[in-house]
């Protein structure tokens, strides 16, 4: 098999696709990429630079850090400050501001906060520190949840007793429905998250596009994948079709990864979740099944989630819905900077504001 990157970054192919896209001269179209990794790829590969004036791209709520409320960070900070706790987290949660501080400031003050690449990394930490309580900050969408589920299952099987999870995992379907139900919704098509669909399969997205008569393409993350997805959306819009086409069949099967779905269903169950910018959306989050309640950090440490207010002037909530561009927020580039972020959209490496700022 040829190198997986090269073919999808072939200069000649990209050039012809970009040219085809830039030749579009039809009615104005606004497309939304849902996934934060798409936001990042679009910025990194300069996709917006080849778009014709008639095509606009906005970012959606698929950035798990961006949609995590500051009340979650407050609970994490409370845990981190406990001398008996080792907090394990993905890197991009580190600098998200809570009501008073971030995990970074906590860490600088001496709290044991460790960055992990995978939740599975916590198992070794538990083994090496039996005297400590290891807490994993469990966030993510359907791509990430299976490996967290796997970690719970492995911890259970190994008899690990000093591990717990602060769960804020979320799923895409209900937030997508909330987006289209909004009376201000004016999106002409979706670039759907390719790796979420590798896990879940494409069925929901096919039904979604049919039900709401909106074009959709399940896209991968290489430059050719993004250009291909956009060309597909333009074609659907031009031909007045509305379906979810899979352009990432090399990892997305219609039924998805059933083992991963099973692991998720065994360990987690749907619940209501708080999304920054959307409020509470029923059935959009995941919590541990009763059988795994012993691994729930909220229970183990008797934590209460205190509702936190948005910082004054922060417009992350509108940005997450694709209503405004980051540049419309008065704090963007003035008070809110990557070095001193106010909102989560600037902190997360996949946030719309961080992407805009980096590639401006």
């Amino acid at each position, binding site marked *: 098999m040829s190198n*997986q990157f090269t073919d999808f970054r072939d200069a000649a*192919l990209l050039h012809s696709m970009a040219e085809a896209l830039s030749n579009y001269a039809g009615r104005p179209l606004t497309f939304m990429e849902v996934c934060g990794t798409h936001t990042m790829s679009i910025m990194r590969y300069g996709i917006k630079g080849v778009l014709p004036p008639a095509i606009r791209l906005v970012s959606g709520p698929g950035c798990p850090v961006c949609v995590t409320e500051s009340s979650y960070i407050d609970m994490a900070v409370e845990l981190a400050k406990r001398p008996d706790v080792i907090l394990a987290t993905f890197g991009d949660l580190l600098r998200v501001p809570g009501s008073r501080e971030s995990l970074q400031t906590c860490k600088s003050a001496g709290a044991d906060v460790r960055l992990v690449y995978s939740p599975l990394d916590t198992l070794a930490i538990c083994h090496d520190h039996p005297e400590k309580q290891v807490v994993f900050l469990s966030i993510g969408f359907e791509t990430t949840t299976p490996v967290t589920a796997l970690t719970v299952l492995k911890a259970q099987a190994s008899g690990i007793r000093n591990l717990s999870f602060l769960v804020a995992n979320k799923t895409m379907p209900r937030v997508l429905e909330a987006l289209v139900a909004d009376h201000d919704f004016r999106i002409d098509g979706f670039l759907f998250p390719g790796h979420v669909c590798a896990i879940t399969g494409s069925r929901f997205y096919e039904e979604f596009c049919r039900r709401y008569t909106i074009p959709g393409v399940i896209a991968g993350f290489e430059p050719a994948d993004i250009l291909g997805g956009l060309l597909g959306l333009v074609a659907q819009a031009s031909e007045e079709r509305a379906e979810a086409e899979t352009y990432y069949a090399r*990892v997305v099967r219609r039924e998805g990864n059933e083992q991963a779905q099973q692991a998720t269903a065994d360990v987690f169950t749907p619940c209501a979740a708080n999304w920054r910018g959307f409020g509470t959306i029923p059935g959009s989050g995941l919590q541990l099944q009763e059988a795994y309640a012993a691994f729930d950090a909220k229970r183990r440490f008797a934590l209460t989630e205190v509702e936190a207010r948005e910082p004054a002037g922060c417009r992350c909530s509108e940005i997450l819905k694709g209503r405004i561009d980051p540049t419309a927020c008065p704090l963007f580039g003035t008070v809110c900077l990557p070095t001193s972020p106010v909102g989560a959209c600037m902190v997360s490496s996949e946030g719309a504001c961080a992407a805009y700022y980096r590639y401006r």
Partner: protein
Amino acid sequence: MCLAVPGKVIRIENTNAVVDVLGVTRSIAVDLIRDLQVGDYLMVHAGYAIEKIDEEEAVRTLELYRELGAVLEEQQDVE
């Protein structure tokens, strides 16, 4: 947070596989992959394989991309 990289399986060790990602090797969990063989390509995210990469589909997708560019160009010429 869908960030994932393709890796080539060079060794399988129980429920883990050692994969080569552009020269860097890493042990990742393959509990959620069926019928894995050395030489297969996997999409790796947060320490586990989310799916195998299907080479035939990859080739088909590239073909689709070549066609898409051409079709849209034709449409623009007609308008």
